[in-house]
């Protein structure tokens, strides 16, 4: 089935060698980085290098808003080399701002993690990407424990993660499969208890969220990396959904599906 996912990703390639979030949409950093990891793709790497900014980021520059959250994925996709090193340097020099703790949204102000857009607060998915890239290539980076601290702080009550708020106005916010999987892909042996709660939560979450392609694809990747037997069942659900829907041509979901079921997963595996 990896071949089917890979073929769909390949079919979405643009003439410039990169990939957009959907077929025929202009190439962007996130979809190109994930497709490159999935396919071990030379053209994708060339696109990422060509679109790397002077500061090492591979960003979507929307003027006042610069989304550099794909730089960590680009660092993984680029493999070894100068562009890869510069992406990692950017990652280590651009943590999120500290989020002030308030009565309505209490946070640990001492941790920062990574943000979606430059100069803003840290959230679960970009922080997970940052942790993963540094663990793979800069395992002693002090930003890693900071990122893990953010994941500990934002963990939903009972385990797992949503986009990044544990409680709002004393209301416990539930975890999602997709973001829980993203955090687990990053953690891989960093905090046994935190991960055990996350995996337990994910085993339940993916079953109720099995109509989501991105959720199932990242769940399969996370459970595989955690050597959890439930990975096979999540993968079966992913295959079934793909057969029925083609994952709605979402290139990010397709690339994650290809990563989860193919050789790309080894590129995300941390030696512990």
């Amino acid at each position, binding site marked *: 089935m990896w071949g089917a996912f890979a073929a769909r990703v390949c079919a979405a390639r643009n003439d410039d060698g990169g990939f*957009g*979030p*959907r077929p*025929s*949409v*202009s190439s*962007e950093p*996130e979809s190109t980085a994930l497709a490159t990891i999935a396919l071990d793709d030379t053209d994708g790497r060339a696109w990422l290098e060509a679109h790397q900014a002077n500061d090492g980021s591979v960003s*979507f520059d*929307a*003027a*006042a*808003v610069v*989304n550099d*959250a794909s730089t960590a994925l680009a660092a993984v996709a680029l493999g070894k080399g100068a562009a890869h090193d510069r992406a990692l340097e950017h990652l280590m020099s651009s943590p999120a701002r500290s*989020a*002030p*703790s*308030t009565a*309505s*949204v209490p*946070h640990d102000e001492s941790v920062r993690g990574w*943000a*979606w*857009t430059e*100069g*803003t*607060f840290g*959230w679960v*998915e*970009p922080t997970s990407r940052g942790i993963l890239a540094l663990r793979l290539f800069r395992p002693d980076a002090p930003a890693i424990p900071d990122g893990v601290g953010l994941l500990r702080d934002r963990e939903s009550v009972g385990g797992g993660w*949503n*986009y990044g708020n544990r409680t*709002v*106005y004393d*209301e416990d*916010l*539930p975890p*999602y*499969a*997709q973001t829980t999987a993203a955090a687990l892909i990053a953690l891989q042996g960093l905090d046994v208890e935190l991960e055990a709660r996350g995996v337990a939560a994910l085993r339940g979450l993916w079953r109720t*969220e099995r*109509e*989501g*392609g*991105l*959720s199932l694809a990242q769940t399969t990747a996370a459970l595989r990396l955690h050597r959890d037997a439930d990975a096979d069942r999540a993968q079966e659900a992913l295959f079934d959904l793909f057969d029925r*829907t083609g*994952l*709605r041509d*979402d*290139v*990010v*979901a397709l690339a994650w599906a290809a990563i989860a079921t193919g050789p790309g997963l080894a590129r995300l595996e941390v030696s512990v």
Partner: protein
Amino acid sequence: MDVMDRRAFLRRSAIAAGTVGAAALFGEHLWQQRGTPELWDAAAFVPPGTARVAVLSATSYDNGLEDLVDRGLRAIGADVGGARVVLKPNLVEFDAGTPINTDPRLVAATVIALRRLGAVDVLVGEGPGHRRDTQYVVVRSGLLEALDAVDATFVDLNTDAVKRVPLRSRYTELGALWLPRTITDADVVISMPKMKTHHWAGLTLSLKNCFGCVPGRIYGWPKNALHWAGLEQSILDVAAAVRPDYAIVDGIVGMEGNGPISGTPIEANVLVFGDDPVATDTVAARLMGFDPEKVPYLAEAARFLGQGDMDKIRLEGESLGSVTRDFAVLPPFRSMKP
């Protein structure tokens, strides 16, 4: 206020907005402090004239909804003949049994009604703000099934092709927004919010609903860059960029309390149609027991984006008093009530 003071205020406001999201909790607002006539391009925003709003009683999502929507659209003179129309419902999250989203049956009924009125193409687009797995939300909410039943297409605005749209208002310092082509290329955009309270902005209606047009893949989840830029300021700039042509508020079952996600259902039994989103939100706010003039972003929107003067809003349908409900709000927003 000089430039440095203004920037300091903006930063302060943004910091609060990013976490507590509560620019509204400040007793004063950026635009009041700035007091400058340059918050919007006068040439881009024609002073609003008389607006039309229709308030129709509706107690069920199951019976005769297409006819009711047809009636509402005709009452406000909706002109969609030959048009490519995009419906923008509120589909931010899914939780079984909680009325977070615009009801899919209303969206499907609106597709049918618009076709009756001569629309040549009707798409439904949304970029969910909390969950980035749109496929999950659109299926579990029942929207995809409802659209399949009327042969309508859903577009994920979080992954759509984008176009840079320079802002003609300047409540934030964003300068421009990258908006989905599905929105920018449409002939007619209809904002279809759920009637809800909102724990950062007080209430969320057709103006706030425009946040779903801003792609998460660029601005993050939960559209955090907009919160960072100032929530209320962003509501104004995003709505001014999207500029919905019409609004249809789903108040058959609304949400009160800790909305927009964790509140409780309230049967308001009403649909609100308008040819001006500001006027529509002004009327809907009254129906929720708010004083629109005490909702800062709404009062500000009435200065340039649409009509907020009840004397200049031509009302059709029910008298407001007969269908007004007192939506419960969190304590910081009680000041928005009369």
